[in-house]
């Protein structure tokens, strides 16, 4: 097995293992809406990872960032910018979450977790798109 094949297998394996773990948790708690969102994101991630790993040189900048297949130093620099943006979003969301949880207590823990999942993955994809268009 080549280095690329091992790396691909590791990436897909991590996603599949995460999906299995989350599915078990959701099966126990019985939240089907959560399950649909998780499976949609994971399925999209696996498809993207396999597609990019097959032809990394022909992929666009944003495709490589979304599949975490960094081909060179510029990809790594762009990824760093994108993760910095996600960090800012995470900090801002933490402030909102603390406020909602401690002051008003209007949301349950599972909805906060689902909101964090959607917002952080969404902001990561948006940040990847932004940095490839605006940075470098």
């Amino acid at each position: 097995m080549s280095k690329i094949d091992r790396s691909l297998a590791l990436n897909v394996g991590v996603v599949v293992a995460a999906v299995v773990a989350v599915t078990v948790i959701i099966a126990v708690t019985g939240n089907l809406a959560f399950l649909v969102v998780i499976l949609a994101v994971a399925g999209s991630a696996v498809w993207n990872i396999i597609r990019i790993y097959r032809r990394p040189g022909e992929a666009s900048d944003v495709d490589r960032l979304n599949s975490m297949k960094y081909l060179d130093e510029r990809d790594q620099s762009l990824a760093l910018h994108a993760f910095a943006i996600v960090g800012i979003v995470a900090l801002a969301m933490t402030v909102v979450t603390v406020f909602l949880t401690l002051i008003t207590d209007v949301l349950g823990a599972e909805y906060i977790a689902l909101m964090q999942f959607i917002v952080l993955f969404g902001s990561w994809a948006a940040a990847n798109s932004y940095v490839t268009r605006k940075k470098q």
Partner: protein
Amino acid sequence: MRSALKELRVEAGLSQAALASILRVSRQTINAIETSRYDPSLTLAVRIARHFNRPVEEIFYVED
């Protein structure tokens, strides 16, 4: 930072994809360097200079 990369690449008869493959970077990185949208690291600049057998400062320069 400006560069003479495009002129050197064309002179050598290489496409962006071919040069990218030689330097083990993406085609988009070569394009970004040629259009001054990306400043390469010192390591990559030296590798480019070695490939074209030129001093780094002959390929990359800052306009005053």
